[in-house]
């Protein structure tokens, strides 16, 4: 074993230029190759084969014929055309955008503000405890969150206890879609505010403390220190997170919406992802559903590239690539 790897190491130095010895090197490094193989195979099977399966959005998929054997559609973009001719199509797209934008509007700045405030808390022990508590909601599953929302929104639930405390009447908040956005976004903020602040807090702890000493000598107040020291320190992290968030804008957490839907509000709450699930998995229209999914992925890509381009133009250092 030892001899082999020693040889592998020495041969790779020699094999730097001639192409013919590539296979020889590979043969010598077969231990490495074997170590990598199981993981790589799983990745190819479960990630690349579904990517290839996207082809069915242009085909009339028959499970007996497989992805390649199924006939191409005529016209090729038939599924996309059907989707855009659907009366509900714009309603679904609008719902998706609305949920995505509202979620981002609140879940993106909330952790930043929380991190900046937490950074101002004196006492290491205090800070650590608050942090630890704030992470808990992150580890709660989406089913539990939705079950809690469902329970709290019922007439005898917590939300209605609070409403009554403030002199409002008890209402069934699970009925209809009036309270959907409030519950959806509110619970999203509750879940992400603590956990999302970690990246910002770690950027804040890397600040050179001498900056604060200098600011103290100059007589800067708390707000000035936050504005001129803490905030600039987290701007790069913020931009990266912004680009990543924009990419997720159409990927509303549809597993959550799926759980929050009921017979009274289903039509108002449909988003692209629930539509894909409904058409594809429930109704078995595989090709059509895949096409709609592909459409939303492409829009996501455009959004990410677009945001990155805008940031690169305004401040090249902060862009993701």
């Amino acid at each position, binding site marked *: 074993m030892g001899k082999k790897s020693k040889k592998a190491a020495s041969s790779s130095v020699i094999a730097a230029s001639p192409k013919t010895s590539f296979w020889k090197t590979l043969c010598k490094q077969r231990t490495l190759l074997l170590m990598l193989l199981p993981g790589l195979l799983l*990745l190819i099977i479960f990630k690349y084969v579904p990517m290839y399966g*996207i082809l069915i959005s242009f085909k009339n998929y028959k499970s007996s014929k497989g992805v390649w054997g199924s006939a191409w559609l005529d016209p090729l973009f038939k599924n996309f055309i059907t989707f855009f001719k659907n009366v509900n199509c714009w309603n679904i797209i609008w719902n998706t955008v609305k949920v995505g934008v509202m979620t981002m509007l609140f879940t993106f700045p909330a952790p930043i503000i929380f991190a900046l405030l937490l950074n101002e808390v004196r006492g290491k022990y205090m800070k650590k405890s608050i942090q630890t508590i704030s992470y808990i909601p992150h580890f709660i599953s989406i089913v539990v969150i939705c079950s809690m929302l469902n329970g709290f929104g019922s007439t005898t639930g917590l939300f209605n206890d609070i409403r009554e405390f403030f002199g409002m009447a008890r209402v069934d908040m699970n009925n209809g879609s009036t309270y959907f956005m409030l519950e959806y976004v509110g619970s999203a903020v509750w879940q992400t505010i603590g956990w999302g602040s970690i990246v910002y807090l770690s950027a804040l702890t890397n600040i050179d403390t001498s900056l604060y000493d200098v600011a103290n000598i100059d007589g800067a107040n708390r707000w000035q220190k936050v504005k001129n020291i803490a905030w600039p320190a987290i701007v790069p992290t913020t931009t990266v997170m912004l680009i990543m968030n924009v990419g997720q804008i159409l990927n509303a957490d549809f597993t959550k919406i799926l759980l929050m839907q009921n017979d009274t509000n289903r039509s108002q709450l449909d988003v692209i992802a629930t539509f894909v699930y409904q058409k594809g998995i429930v109704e078995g229209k595989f090709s059509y559903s895949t096409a709609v999914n592909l459409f939303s992925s492409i829009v996501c890509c455009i959004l990410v590239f677009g945001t990155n381009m805008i940031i690169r133009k305004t401040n090249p250092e902060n862009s993701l690539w």
Partner: protein
Amino acid sequence: MDKTKKRKNKIYIGNKAFDVVLIIFMLLMCVIFLYPFLNVLSVSFSSNSMITTGQVTFFPREFNLESYKVLFDAENILRAYGNTIVIAAATTILNLVLNSLVAYVLMVPEFCLKKPLSIIILITMFFTGGTVPTYLLIQNLGLLNSWWALILPNAVSAYNIFLYKAFFKGISPEIREAAKIDGAGELTILTRIYAPLSKALYATFGLFSVVGVWNNYYEALLYIKDADKQPIQMILRKIVFSFTTTSMGDAQAMIGHGKLNQLSVQYACIIAAILPILCIYPFVQKYFAQGMQVGAVKG
């Protein structure tokens, strides 16, 4: 001179006031983070009359275990726990072993396929096939209604691979060279040197994987049809979102007679679903935060 002193004094008082307000705000936040759990817990132990009149807040009123009795009679919670534990264990072991193997090989500087394979793995971070093509793949592989459909797709993750790789790169390459001269093979180097040095990372990813599996319901919804094979989250989904249609005959009658509260049975099930996570949380939370920081710095 006097002016600057006054200004400093003003800042001092302002600071103190701000500190107080901040602490109050933070305590309020902690209440918001924790109170929902407390409310669920106390309602699950309270009597129907107390719940319907809205008198349950911080502590159970008219303490009883009726909801839990009904829940454990109607649903095989213990089997669901068992199912989830088996799935979580299998996923986590595969996850730790396979990801670190791939990461180690990609870290070896002289490996000849390093570049192309890295790119192949990186691509999977940004592009996916989507719901339906993945479902069709699982169907074609004959994995529908099998736990492998939940385990195998989650066994390898590009994100984890790159974090392992970044961590392994931080270990001095001289150690590896020295081990090779002493005659150690690649696998021995990984298991005897690299893995023990990266214990914290393994712990973090192991915990993430366990929590991820514990909380996953969507894949079970797609792929698992047998009631016997369902993980805990699916049981909760059933109890809460299709309560009226479940075959909880006795419970329905009891609710009808006002002896039992529907909400408290649902809450009892929520407690059953989160209790394991909340119990291990205090012991493992420092690893979670550490792992997230590794991700933030190197990812």
